[in-house]
């Protein structure tokens, strides 16, 4: 999934008055109109310990890209939509690792998979309607995938294994032959070119969430398509506000407890650019949840002290790393890549990120069952210098790439200093975040080394190794394998594991082995898994708090004291 967007410079343009504004805000706190009122609880969700919200207000950041399930590819966008547009399959609305369990949403049950692993058959639940009252049809699913191609969805890469999808992507005419549907029975059959172990996860992405076949093939963010989930988007003013209300045609009883009815009657997302302002709004009760904003480091301690019960720390599945382009000197030399790994002091980078992170030296995050901790590159500056000398690249110019948002530029400031200290001649190249990923993902750029992070699209090791490190998936543009890592042994292992239908202990051990093998080749210098905070206004009852492994805070289950 796309990286968290935390750019806020436009709203902090009045830079020289920040201090004054903060003081003023702090002095004037507490006067906000409280948006939550008690109402008769209509909740039937599992966590309806407290009262439901009439209006649950969220101070969100500017990261929401689209509110069109075919186009959105950010944590923020999906965070809004996972209770709005239901896919055929989805994830359990629970805390912890169990949240990675796939359950049927719009489908009656989990798919029947053919013995060769190439055909998936699902049946649509009966009686499911869109928010406008029209019934959901099996053919809508096919139309949705085809619409993804028509709108140039960033998710079309997930469907490339469906028979006929690649051809449809080229012509955008006709239909995808590998998807057949029957509206009268609700049966959907999907044929794949190759077995694919993560295909159920792909069916659970927002890109596969059905919208009516008549939905125009253009961005529908501000004219939202009818929803299937407990909520529908009433209005969306980009960079200002999102308003969700209950879907009048949603019937939670159809889903056997897999989809919550939703505690708040209405959810209002106020887009706030500045972290301090957003925090102040939550402290004063103007908003109930500090959505996706980090608490500014110098206010964390006081927030923890004053509101210890309203603060939650969580670790989503993510890995922050420096990629090293194995096709470009000096990083086409294994010794140089290993030297960088030895030279980085991960503990230092944890502090550079404010301390809310865990150091790592591997690809998979610790939240994965396949994770097996390895320590291949303990900090050793002398060894790093020795490897650089052995590689004969001392004094070679190196450009360190990064974008300009959030705390991430600090990481490359650190890396640049480290590279200079081991004998390379490093300079930074900071690019606007809006174009950074396409720039470093373009082979013409020949980016030598740079910053990257990854937040899972779905909880499966393929989302890490196949998307980011499979040499067979290297592309000329929009390349996710920034290191251009192409190792025959690793590729074959990924391809073999891709066909595994189940992630059992044996498969998990094999994935752990791939992790180790990749790091032996050091195409990355992974350095940390970041932690984040959720902060709530004092009236929010956190006994209802649920943080999902993929979608993070679940606003549909939250309740009031």
């Amino acid at each position, binding site marked *: 999934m796309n990286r968290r967007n935390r750019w806020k410079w436009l709203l902090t*343009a009045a*830079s020289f008055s920040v201090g004054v504004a903060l003081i003023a805000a702090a002095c004037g706190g507490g006067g906000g109109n409280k948006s939550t009122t008690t109402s008769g609880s209509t909740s039937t969700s599992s966590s309806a310990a407290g009262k439901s919200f009439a209006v649950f207000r969220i101070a969100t950041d500017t990261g929401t890209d689209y509110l069109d399930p075919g186009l959105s590819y950010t944590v923020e966008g999906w965070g809004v939509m996972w209770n709005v547009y239901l896919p055929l399959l989805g994830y359990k609305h629970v805390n912890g690792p169990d949240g990675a369990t796939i359950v049927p949403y719009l489908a009656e049950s989990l798919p029947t998979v053919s013995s060769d692993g190439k055909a998936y058959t699902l049946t649509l639940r009966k009686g499911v309607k869109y928010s406008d009252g029209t019934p959901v049809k099996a053919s809508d699913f096919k139309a949705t995938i085809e619409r993804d191609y028509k709108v140039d969805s960033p998710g079309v890469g997930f469907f490339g294994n469906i028979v006929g999808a690649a051809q449809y992507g080229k012509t955008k005419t006709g239909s995808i032959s590998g998807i057949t549907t029957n509206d009268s029975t609700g049966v959907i059959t999907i044929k794949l070119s190759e077995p694919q172990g993560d295909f159920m996860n792909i069916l659970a992405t927002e890109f596969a969430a059905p919208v009516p076949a008549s939905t125009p093939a253009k961005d529908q963010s501000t004219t939202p398509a009818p929803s299937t989930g407990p909520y529908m988007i009433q209005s969306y003013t980009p960079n200002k506000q999102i308003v969700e209300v209950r879907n009048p045609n949603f019937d939670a009883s159809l889903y056997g407890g897999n989809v919550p009815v939703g505690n708040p009657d209405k959810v209002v997302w106020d887009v706030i650019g500045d972290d301090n302002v957003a925090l102040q709004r939550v402290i004063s009760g103007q908003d109930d949840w500090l959505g996706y904003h980090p608490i500014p480091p110098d206010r964390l301690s006081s927030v923890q002290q004053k509101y210890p019960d309203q603060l939650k720390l969580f670790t989503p599945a993510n890995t922050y790393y420096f990629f090293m382009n194995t096709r470009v000197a000096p990083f086409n030399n294994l010794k140089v890549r290993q030297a960088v790994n030895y030279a980085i002091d991960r503990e230092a980078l944890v502090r550079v990120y404010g*301390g809310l992170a865990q150091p790592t030296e591997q690809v998979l995050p610790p939240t994965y069952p396949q994770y097996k901790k390895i320590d291949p590159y303990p900090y050793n500056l002398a060894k790093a210098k020795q490897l650089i000398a052995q590689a004969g690249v001392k004094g070679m110019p190196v450009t360190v790439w990064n974008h300009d948002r959030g705390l991430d530029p600090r990481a490359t400031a650190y890396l640049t200093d480290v590279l200079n200290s081991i004998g390379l001649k490093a300079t930074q190249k900071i690019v606007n975040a809006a174009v950074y990923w396409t720039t470093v993902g373009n082979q013409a750029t020949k980016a030598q080394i740079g910053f990257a992070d990854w937040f899972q699209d779905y909880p499966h090791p393929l989302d890490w190794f196949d998307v980011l490190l499979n040499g067979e998936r290297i592309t000329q543009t929009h390349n996710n394998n920034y290191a251009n890592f192409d190792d025959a042994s690793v590729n074959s292992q990924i391809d073999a594991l891709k066909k595994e239908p189940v992630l059992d202990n044996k498969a998990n051990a094999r994935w752990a082995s791939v992790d180790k093998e990749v790091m032996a080749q050091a195409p990355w210098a992974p350095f940390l898994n970041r932690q984040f905070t959720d902060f709530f206004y004092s009236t929010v009852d956190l006994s209802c708090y649920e943080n999902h492994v993929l979608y993070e805070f679940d606003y549909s289950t939250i309740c009031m004291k």
Partner: protein
Amino acid sequence: MAERATETEFTLDTAAELAAAEEPAAIRGRSPWYLAWRRLRRNYVAFFFLALFILVVVACLLAPVYAKHVAHTGPNTNHVLENVEVNGKETPVLSPGGYIDPHTGKLCPTSESGCKLVASIPIGPTWFSGGGKFVLGADQNGRDVAVRLLYGGRTSLFVGIVSSLICVFFAVILALVAAYYGGWSDFVITRFFDLFYAFPVILLGIALGSALAINGFHHFGLNIQSGSIWIPTLVISYVLIPYIGRPLRGQVLSLREKEFIEASIAQGASPFRVMFVELLPNIASSILVFFTLIIANNIILEAALSFLGAGVQPPTASWGTQIADGQELIVTRPWLSLAPGLAIVITVLSLNIFGDGLRDALDPRAKVKVEH
């Protein structure tokens, strides 16, 4: 007013000397520059602020000396995990973050057992109690703020002064050509000025700075890499040309009609000579005042653009980037932003007050000021 050049000693026995002494005193001409200097040197406030500005410049020029012999670090050197001795006590440059045991100060494995969630915070100002290290504290990368302040000053002053030179140079040329030739030349140049006037300077600066920050500038024989300090320098000089060029054009238009210009043309002076020998010296005082004032203006503009990410690129220190770096720690480590902010205030104030004094000295009736 003319005054006697020398006092003659009166002696009765020298008739020639007596005669010479009785002759009317010679009246010596005083150039406008001399008169201006006499007016300026009586303006002690302007001189005080000139001295202050020179002090800032000298301090910034001595940044490498301070870095090497006092702070013992470079402007981009990270000291994240190091400790510094402050008043005999070892203090981490960046405190550890995460769940910390409030009694031992060590990391806790979990959030339980009374541990507190804290963020890593850099050390505050040591005010020379740390042996010259981290006098103004450290930033989030463990870099010495005082060292970066001085290096940042070099950057900001370089951008401010060089962009002013470039801006004034082109503004003068365009003003002279537009006003002297008139007609189509004047029309085209003034429309160019109008076009730039139509955009707020800061927005135009952001647009150009952001666009050039990606790929640099590779046109007209110029090959400037992205991240180069020349990008904000050229952007700032470019966007401000009309703000100098337009008032100068007005002055040249007025001078163009004077008799001495007509006489010069009648004597067969070339346009080049008229523009640069006759007209230019007559607007020199305005140019000098504009130049002084626009340096201050450009330092502020550089700081604003760098703060917004469209100016000087990290890790190069500039006062604008330092303010941006410090904004997240404005509550607990205000010096991160305050120090460069004060440096900007002192520099800009000193330049503005000196510029005002210079304007008053050169032409007390003039109303030269930079507005946008």
